[in-house]
């Protein structure tokens, strides 16, 4: 970094501090974008670009050079063999150089749980993916207690089990509508027609976002979580800022609209914005723009990729393990346990990042204050020390619920019950309708080291015979 760059960064940081409470959030996004663009044009910042190359087998790479942050690992089917080697030979592994700087990889189940439950040593601040987000948006997934607890408690009611019970029939109707409109005479893209559609509808419902514009939520989420700098993805920086700005403008408008409607006497709904506006801790959130933006982004991203890719992953898993689909059809009461097994097998978010707050001895290694520590959930869920025959998909696996995909400790997934419910309803409704759900060809995999997901997956449905 040259000195001019440092000056600009300091100027930006100081401006952001001062304006945080006074300048509307969309204008702040725009200002940050202009600053970034200026730096790029002046040659002071170079966007990170990843080019796919064949990844060698893990046995052919020196242990010290193993880089599981390569965003093509999943697409090339190499993540699991690499993780298996790390778990056996270097369960707390240090990589000195990567596009995201040096980092530790934690790959065994027990070790991940130990890091996750120790926020005093391993901080979630300031961000939980490998690289920094372009904007300093503040979200509680990347805050330590006690600030985290206050913010999370303010919004978690919307996905609390009590609220979900009320919403179950609405969710079921929307799932039924999606499934009843699927073609059965030709293959179609399951990701687009089912996984994205159902999660998009759900998000629009939770946020009370205009239903006919729900596809925007999916677009914003994918764009924001897919920066090359953050997760090795494909989002261009200009698109990041545009999506963030658009999200900010839309939700500011929604916020003010809802406030006005309530003031005019409309009964408060049980949606997320209303909850924020009626909780003492968050009712002024709009005047803390970066926090406002951060928490909305978190809820949109958190409820999007995760459930979506589990909806696709379940279909793929049952295709790779057809005897399990027969078992399921013979005993649909296995759906609940299968949902946990899908979430374990898929692990839709591959990791969470922490930063050591102090020097610490861990797993025979010496982790220094400030080091990045990556908890690879995708590896913990395939740890043979925890799960017997871990790569197999077994819908009645006795300890499927012990999967690590939701994380453990204070940051444990807030939407876990909503996710489970959506998946359970999907499979209940699928079994009512279809005899066969066949994946045609290979699915397309997302380029990312964070989102373990599918871009496309062609599927041919066979309706249940009407005997």
């Amino acid at each position, binding site marked *: 970094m040259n000195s001019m760059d440092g000056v600009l960064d300091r100027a930006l940081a100081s401006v952001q501090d001062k304006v945080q409470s006074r300048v509307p959030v969309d204008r702040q996004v725009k200002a940050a974008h202009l600053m970034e663009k200026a730096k790029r044009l002046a040659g002071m910042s170079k966007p990170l670009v990843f080019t796919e190359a064949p990844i060698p087998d893990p046995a052919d790479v020196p242990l010290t050079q193993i880089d599981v942050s390569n965003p093509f690992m999943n697409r090339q089917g190499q993540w699991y063999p690499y993780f298996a080697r790390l778990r056996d030979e270097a369960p707390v592994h240090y990589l000195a150089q990567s596009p995201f700087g040096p980092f530790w990889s934690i790959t065994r189940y027990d070790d991940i*749980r130990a890091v*996750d*439950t120790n926020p005093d040593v391993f901080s979630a601040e300031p961000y939980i993916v490998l690289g920094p987000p372009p904007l300093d948006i503040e979200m509680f997934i990347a805050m330590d*207690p006690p600030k985290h*607890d206050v913010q*999370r*408690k303010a919004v*978690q*009611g919307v996905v*609390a*089990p*009590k609220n979900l019970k009320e919403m179950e029939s609405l969710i079921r109707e929307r799932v039924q509508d999606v499934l009843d409109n699927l073609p059965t005479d030709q293959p179609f893209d399951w990701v687009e027609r089912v996984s994205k559609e159902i999660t998009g509808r759900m998000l629009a419902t939770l946020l009370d976002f205009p239903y006919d514009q729900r596809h925007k939520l999916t677009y914003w989420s994918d764009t924001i979580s897919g920066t090359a700098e953050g997760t090795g993805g494909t989002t261009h920086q200009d698109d990041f800022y545009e999506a963030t700005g658009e999200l900010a403008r839309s939700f500011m408008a929604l916020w003010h609209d809802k406030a006005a409607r309530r003031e005019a006497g409309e009964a408060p709904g049980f949606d997320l914005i209303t909850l924020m506006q009626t909780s003492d801790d968050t009712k002024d959130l709009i005047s803390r723009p970066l926090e406002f933006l951060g928490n909305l982004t978190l809820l949109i991203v958190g409820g999007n990729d995760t459930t979506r890719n589990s909806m696709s992953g379940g279909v793929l898993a049952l295709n790779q393990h057809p005897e399990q689909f027969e078992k399921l059809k013979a005993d649909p009461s296995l759906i609940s346990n299968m949902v946990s097994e899908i979430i374990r097998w898929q692990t839709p978010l591959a990791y969470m990042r922490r930063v050591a707050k102090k020097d610490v001895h861990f797993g025979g290694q010496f982790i220094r204050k400030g080091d990045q520590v990556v908890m690879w959930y995708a590896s913990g869920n395939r740890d043979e020390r925890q799960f017997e025959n871990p790569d197999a998909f077994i819908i009645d696996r006795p*300890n499927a*619920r*012990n999967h690590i995909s*939701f994380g*453990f*400790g*204070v940051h*444990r997934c807030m939407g*876990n*019950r909503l996710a489970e419910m959506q998946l359970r309803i999907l499979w209940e409704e699928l079994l009512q309708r279809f005899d066969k759900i066949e994946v045609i060809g290979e699915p397309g995999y997302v380029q990312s080291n964070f989102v373990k997901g599918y871009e496309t997956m062609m599927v041919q449905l066979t309706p249940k015979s009407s005997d």
Partner: protein
Amino acid sequence: MATVTFVAYDGTTHEADLVEGESLMEIATGQAIPGIDGDCGGEAACGTCHVIVDNEWISTTGRRTDQEEQMLDMSSECEENSRLACQVVVSDGMDGLKVRLPEFQM
């Protein structure tokens, strides 16, 4: 035989055999008592084995630790006598112990 009793949210009671040295969570999941998940395997890290200890037993079981508090604090059903069942190790002196379950686990 010594027993412990789990009272479901709807008032249904479930009796389980007291197994000395096991945690209440292990007793519940091992004997198929509904309403206790224990997703993290007993590390006070998931909040899915929340129980509320009967007043007359709280001095015997003790109150929740700071680690339990961190998880239970996020439940809207947390009460004064709330504990994580995985952190209550059962001894012979707990014959007749009674705990209630919340409506939902986290």
